[in-house]
């Protein structure tokens, strides 16, 4: 189980990385490599060139923004996110989910940007980026652009990034007023990809009705995705049992899980509904305080 041969370029800065990727037919940026190197070893990925982003230490930061949100450099290790007081304060749902990402030895090396760009449907971080309306800042040969999380994921292990574009920063906007968030998943073992996972953010108005709702899903489709039907069903209603049950009952409209060795699509949908209820209860409780 050894990788097929590839060339290697150690990037000196983001522009250098972009240029190196642009120069070849089949280049691939490597961040933490915790998914990519496994795929290389299995010969399921076989780029001609790896462009190593690890030297780009200036992409390793977690900083507050004046509006109450935060920005995270793409090369920030997951372990740093997990331990960040700022993340805990300003994006508690991400803080809650980080320990569920594989194991410490993986998180020590894995990066937030790598996880998002890899776009595995089983990735907690992808789900959370949707739940918090994160924005991806990227740079490519054609220049810089910003992509909403909702527009970022394109299919199985695919994003809208062009082959020479690099994710440089994740923008996490401030949490909506009077909102609460929660993440929950079911996995076979500690650290495994989830059979199903749900991230939820709900905002509640002065009158107790839902003013903001995001529900996003792990392992329930080709890539991380939201449930607009469920979100819509929450808006304008009080977060009571009936509302939560209604939301859970419509998530299937938006999800398209598949069967695999560990769970059937039917069971995954069942879990999506169960976890939607659980997450909404928790988020509602947090929104109220």
């Amino acid at each position: 189980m050894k990788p097929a041969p590839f060339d290697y370029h150690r990037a000196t800065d983001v522009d250098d990385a972009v240029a190196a990727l642009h120069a070849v037919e089949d280049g691939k940026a490597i961040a933490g490599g915790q998914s990519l190197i496994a795929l290389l070893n299995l010969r399921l990925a076989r780029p001609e060139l790896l462009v190593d982003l690890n030297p780009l230490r200036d992409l390793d930061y977690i900083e507050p923004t004046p509006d109450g949100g935060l920005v995270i450099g793409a090369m920030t290790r997951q372990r740093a996110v997990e331990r960040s007081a700022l993340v805990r304060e300003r994006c508690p749902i991400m803080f809650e989910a980080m320990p569920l990402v594989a194991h410490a030895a993986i998180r020590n090396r894995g990066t937030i940007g790598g996880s998002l760009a890899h776009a595995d449907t089983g990735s907690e971080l992808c789900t959370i980026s949707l739940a918090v309306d994160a924005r991806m800042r990227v740079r490519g040969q054609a220049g810089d652009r910003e992509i909403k999380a909702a527009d970022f994921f394109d299919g199985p292990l695919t994003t809208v990034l062009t082959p020479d574009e690099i994710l440089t920063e994740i923008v996490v906007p401030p949490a909506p007023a009077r909102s609460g968030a929660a993440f929950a998943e079911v996995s076979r073992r500690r650290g495994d990809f989830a059979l199903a996972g749900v991230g939820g953010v709900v905002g509640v108005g002065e009158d107790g009705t839902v003013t903001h709702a995001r529900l996003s899903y792990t392992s329930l489709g080709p890539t991380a995705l939201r449930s607009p039907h469920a979100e819509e069903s929450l808006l304008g209603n009080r977060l009571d049992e009936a509302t939560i049950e209604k939301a859970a009952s419509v998530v299937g409209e938006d999800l398209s899980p598949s069967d695999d060795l560990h769970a059937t699509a039917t069971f995954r949908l069942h879990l999506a509904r169960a976890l939607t209820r659980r997450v909404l209860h928790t988020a509602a409780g947090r929104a109220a305080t």
Partner: protein
Amino acid sequence: MVEPARFPITLTVNGMPHSVTVEPRRTLLDCLRDDLVYPGTHVGCEHGVCGCCNVIVDGALVRSCLMLAVQADGADVETIEGVGTEDELSPIQEAFCAKHAMQCGYCTPGMVMTLEDLLRGNPQPTEAELVDAVSGNLCRCTGYQQILQAARSVIADNAAKAGQA
């Protein structure tokens, strides 16, 4: 097919400097074992699940099968060969022997590295933190019971020492 360029790298393993030239595709695991001859780091799955190949790179526990040797250029690597000596085992190693926290010994180096890493950062982890750390390494012999017993005994010693200080 054109042979990809090979890369000269320099790294420190257990305090010893090494220079070696590697293909980009060589993992740190294979480099440590076969180029630099530190065979205590074991090959289990080569896809990042089992933890047999855990080493400490620049102070952080990593899977050496999920890191390329070229990426370790300039790094400070610590392997099982750097933990304890023949005459003086580390407290974790000593406790592993006292509790028989292994059978075949194959997962043991990775397991020891994981616990060394855990206890250096946090000498008195909670039970939940301990189990979480050990859950990143597979063991097929012990059912984890004696591994956790060994770790708990070291943690208890650490607590006693902290209490005296």
